[in-house]
């Protein structure tokens, strides 16, 4: 971590219609350490419209934004900001269940990079702990390079295709591998930052009568996984459920790994279990742990897909899958909100094919004989 005293504080904008919340957030964000202040709040907006104008003028490193805003909603503001002045946006939401959870997922699909629950009745932590959590998320968010509106990206498919591929680790055309993948039982997908939007794009292109099970591991704040499942369930052809110990992954069903545990595939009958994370495990649920269990249980009878995300989680697991004969796909840089995890996998020689987001579903369908 950069010493806070040795560098200029990172500029942040806070968006909330409540002066109480804005004052509270300023105190939390600007709370100093012995080394000095890491962040500074350079502007406050009371509604979405003010936020769009303020961000364009002040160009902060990151934005902390409520969704329930007057004049212009948080979702509209996120879309406009990401279209005009792309900036990492951290959503600050009062609810992590019900309607607000769905709204938070919509915000992630619109381009927000992460969500954070407002302190509430279930929050027993002190201000110091909460401020630490805010700053930790802002630290990550402010380092993300966001370049375009994710929904705009979907409309610029040609541009994505025009971006040079970084090369393939396997030269065999993917269509040649279809015959060798007759026994595919499971499609395992890992995603992090930018994942909800990418998952929507991928999963809406898979048919409801798919004969394979789909397992998704998405890094997400505690409490949002159920909302993610509910949100996707309304938007994609296949049913979407949250997995749990003792479940068996079902063909034609998308199972999402629950919060707080690693979801592991136990055997080739697709039974799964939830296990506690190892001490110090940074991402929970872990993609590496899940993918490695898929490699051990299914060998070549699986397809691994690593989508957009910061960090390296999933790269080792994807490599394990490839080593056991599974076909592995990685999202390319041009269409990734954050080209971190797919890049790490590519660097590890864990990726058979690196593809634009829109090309992944057709590739999967080709692999399972549904082209």
């Amino acid at each position, binding site marked *: 971590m950069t010493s806070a005293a040795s560098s200029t504080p990172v500029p942040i904008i806070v968006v909330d219609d409540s002066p*109480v919340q804005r004052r509270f957030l300023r*105190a939390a964000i600007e709370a100093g350490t012995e080394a000095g202040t890491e962040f500074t709040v350079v502007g406050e907006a009371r509604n979405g419209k003010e936020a769009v104008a303020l961000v364009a003028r002040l160009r902060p490193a990151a934005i902390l934004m409520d969704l329930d805003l007057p004049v212009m909603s948080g979702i509209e503001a996120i879309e406009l900001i990401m279209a005009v002045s792309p900036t990492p946006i951290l959503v600050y939401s009062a609810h992590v269940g019900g309607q607000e959870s769905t709204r938070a997922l919509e915000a992630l699909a619109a381009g927000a990079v992460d969500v954070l629950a407002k302190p509430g009745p279930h929050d027993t932590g002190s*201000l*110091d702990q909460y401020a630490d959590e805010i700053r930790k998320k802002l630290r990550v968010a402010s380092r993300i390079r966001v370049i375009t509106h994710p929904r705009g990206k979907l409309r610029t498919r040609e541009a994505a295709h025009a971006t040079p591929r970084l090369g393939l680790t396997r030269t065999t055309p993917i269509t040649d591998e279809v015959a060798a993948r007759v026994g595919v039982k499971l499609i395992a997908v890992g995603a992090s930052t930018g994942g909800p939007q990418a998952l929507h794009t991928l999963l809406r292109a898979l048919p409801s009568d798919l004969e394979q099970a789909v397992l998704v591991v998405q890094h997400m704040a505690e409490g949002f996984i159920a909302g993610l499942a509910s949100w996707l369930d309304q938007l994609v052809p296949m049913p979407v459920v949250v997995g749990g110990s003792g479940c068996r992954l079902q063909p034609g069903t998308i199972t999402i790994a629950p919060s707080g545990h690693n979801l592991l595939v136990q055997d080739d009958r697709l039974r799964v279990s939830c296990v506690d994370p190892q001490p110090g495990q940074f991402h929970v649920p872990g993609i590496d742990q899940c993918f490695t269990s898929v490699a051990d249980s299914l060998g070549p009878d699986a397809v691994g897909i690593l989508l957009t995300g910061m960090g390296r989680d999933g790269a080792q697991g994807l490599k394990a899958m490839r080593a056991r004969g599974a076909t592995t796909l990685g999202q390319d840089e041009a269409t990734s909100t954050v080209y971190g995890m797919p890049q790490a996998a590519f660097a590890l020689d864990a990726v058979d094919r690196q593809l634009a987001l829109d090309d992944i579903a057709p590739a999967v369908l080709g692999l399972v004989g549904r082209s």
Partner: protein
Amino acid sequence: MGGEVVAGTVAAAVPPAVLADLRVAFAHEISSRLPHLRQVADLEMARRDAHTLASSAWVVGEPEIARLAREVESALPGGPLAELVDKLSRYVA
């Protein structure tokens, strides 16, 4: 204005000077939103007022107001609106 901060809440660890500021801001927030909740002429506005007051009440260490406001937010035009209005009125009295 307001009572003792409830132990275990976020507000319990807020520095006194900041908490005093937050309580003043909360009182202003109540004053500006209370008329909407008394009349409920616009359901959506009243719902948003209840939503905002719920989050703010928790931050300033008023969990009872926070709970009531959250109930009102989800139950409007029903719910314990009269009780919430009474609590808010007392807070700014």
